[in-house]
């Protein structure tokens, strides 16, 4: 720069607002955000709560209609319907079986694909997500002949057992379980961990049970939660394949005694909420323990 060059002039900077004004702006923005949050919470809360409250109201409605007395007769009568109790038990068994079978099927398969045939991962992903795109009615049309064979080959005493639905439900939960487990496996270095365990003398079963599974625990839990939620709420497949699960039983019951049907619906919803809450609590405790240890 030459000695006689004009000194550089800084561009004019707009005067900053005084500190109290900035604080006021921030307060207003915070208040606006809080209002938006509360409004959204109320809207969504209402959207979910109204049908649930209606269920409770319906299940406890006594003589005199809406404005009449309250009664727990519907709740008390649940035990009087052995078919209903049997259906509830069957649905719970189905939920457990579906979760276990889908995890036992998917976890080793997905680990194997990641380690040995990663080029097949796209194909397997496509196959696993396929049930999401096919309507339940179409799936049932395909499954019906298979279930005829299953019935034909099953001993007579077990022919009507809704547990046969496990096969169909495993297919139904595949997309959700696949996505969840895939995310879990992507978060760890499956190859290095399994090779480390193998070099230390672990069999493949040990690798899966003692090394991989504990490290994708939250993913397994989430997959199980989704499976349970889906199975406990499933109606179409069970109804069309002529099996009685809790949803089919409730539908049948609603034709005879709507109060009991609504009581069961309310109770099953509460039970599912409680189950999901407990599962997520267990997952959170596990994560907290892991990070604070």
């Amino acid at each position, binding site marked *: 720069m030459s000695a006689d060059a004009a000194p550089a002039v800084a561009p004019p900077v707009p005067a900053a607002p005084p500190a109290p004004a900035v604080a006021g702006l921030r307060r207003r923005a915070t208040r606006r955000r809080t209002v938006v949050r509360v409004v959204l919470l109320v809207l969504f809360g209402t959207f979910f709560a109204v049908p649930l409250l209606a269920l409770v109201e319906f299940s406890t409605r006594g003589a005199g209609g809406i404005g009449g007395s309250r009664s727990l007769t519907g709740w008390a009568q649940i035990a009087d319907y052995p078919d209903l109790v049997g259906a509830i038990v069957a649905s719970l068994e189905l939920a457990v079986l579906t979760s276990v079978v889908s995890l036992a099927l998917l976890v080793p398969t997905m680990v194997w694909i990641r380690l040995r045939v990663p080029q097949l991962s796209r194909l397997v992903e496509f196959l696993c997500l396929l049930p999401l795109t096919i309507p339940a009615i179409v799936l049932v049309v395909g499954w019906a002949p298979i279930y005829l064979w299953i019935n034909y080959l099953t001993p007579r005493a077990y022919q009507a057992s809704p547990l046969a639905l496990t096969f169909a439900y495993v297919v139904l939960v595949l997309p959700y379980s696949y996505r969840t487990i895939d995310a879990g496996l992507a978060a*760890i*270095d499956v190859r*290095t*961990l399994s*090779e*480390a*365990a*193998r*070099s*230390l*003398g*672990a*069999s493949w079963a*040990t690798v899966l049970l003692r*090394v991989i599974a*504990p*490290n994708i*625990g939250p993913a397994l839990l989430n997959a199980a939660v989704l499976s349970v939620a889906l199975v406990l709420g499933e109606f179409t497949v069970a109804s069309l394949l002529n099996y009685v699960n809790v949803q089919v039983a409730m539908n049948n019951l609603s034709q005879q005694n709507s109060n009991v049907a609504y009581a069961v619906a309310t109770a099953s919803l509460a039970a599912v909420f409680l189950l999901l809450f407990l599962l997520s609590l267990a997952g959170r405790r596990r994560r907290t323990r*892991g*990070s604070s*240890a």
Partner: protein
Amino acid sequence: MTTTTTTTATATARAGVEVRLEQLRRTYGSVTALDGLDLVLRPGEMVALLGPSGCGKTTALRLLAGLEDADGGRVVVGGQDVTRLPTNKRGMGMVFQAYSLFPHMTALQNVAFGLRLRKVSDRERTRRAGEVLELVGLSAQADRYAHQMSGGQQQRVALARALAIQPTVLLLDEPLSALDAKVRAQLRDEIRRVQLEVGTTTLFVTHDQEEALAIADRVGVMNAGRLEQLAPPTDVYHRPSSSFVAEFVGLSTKLPATVAGGRADVLGVSLPLVDAAAPPGPARAVVRPEAVGLAAAGPGETGPLVGTVVATSFLGAVSRVTVDLGPAGQALAQLPTSDVGGFAVGSRALVTLRPDAVVVLPPA
């Protein structure tokens, strides 16, 4: 402390076994990773496999570990053919490049994992795992999880975990490459100390020449799936057996030379030959930077060894100076930093050659 260390070493020590890789072949589609590799590790020695990316060094280690199957050849450990034996039956300890501690286990549980699989009793398992952790200096971190430890500590625990099972062979797959320079140097020395204490035959794969030369009893230089040279570090550095090894290992300057009468004439300086049987005629002499000196060139001084300084690199105690010698190419000199002051970029310098034996390569 000394007593404890001796006890620990005795408890963990195991006589090393001989390892033979015979004509190992492995291809991935059209790519040949190993092309008939022959390698023998003597009992208790540490061999470092060195080579450029894709030369097959990691493949060789993985075949030895059983993590991959060979297309041909044999792996013999302690006289036993283990080529078809699965990984978990080979009894080898391995430390990986990536951090491989089981995240849901503490350091002690990680180290004890292999012992648990071998059905060692709880008490004995804890005792032995504690001993090996002490061997790598991490007793205080026994209850920590992987995410609570630094990278260097994690790799030390991984080393302890591999040693806890008293492996027949210790395999180290670039275990230091994810660490920063200072920790890498510390851990490198520690690995060597521990290996000497336990006496396990060890294969160390690395792409870092300094690491390989510093740590190993012998260094194997690999190229295109084959072993170019397997020799002690000083031999690999000073007596490379091929032009590839000469060019790959260490920094060097290739200067035009003429071989005659068992000596090389390098730009007018007569130097002895590493290989006296080198064919006479034109050649390229490989001159190491530490064998090149610099002197100030007088005004108007000319000659094949007078050139212009084109670059200087400060490396701490030493510096490197590149001198352009015109048609002869460039000479790289490594000097104490205190001697480099007079050789600024653009200044004239006279290159001097120390009368060390040189390797000659065929002319370019």
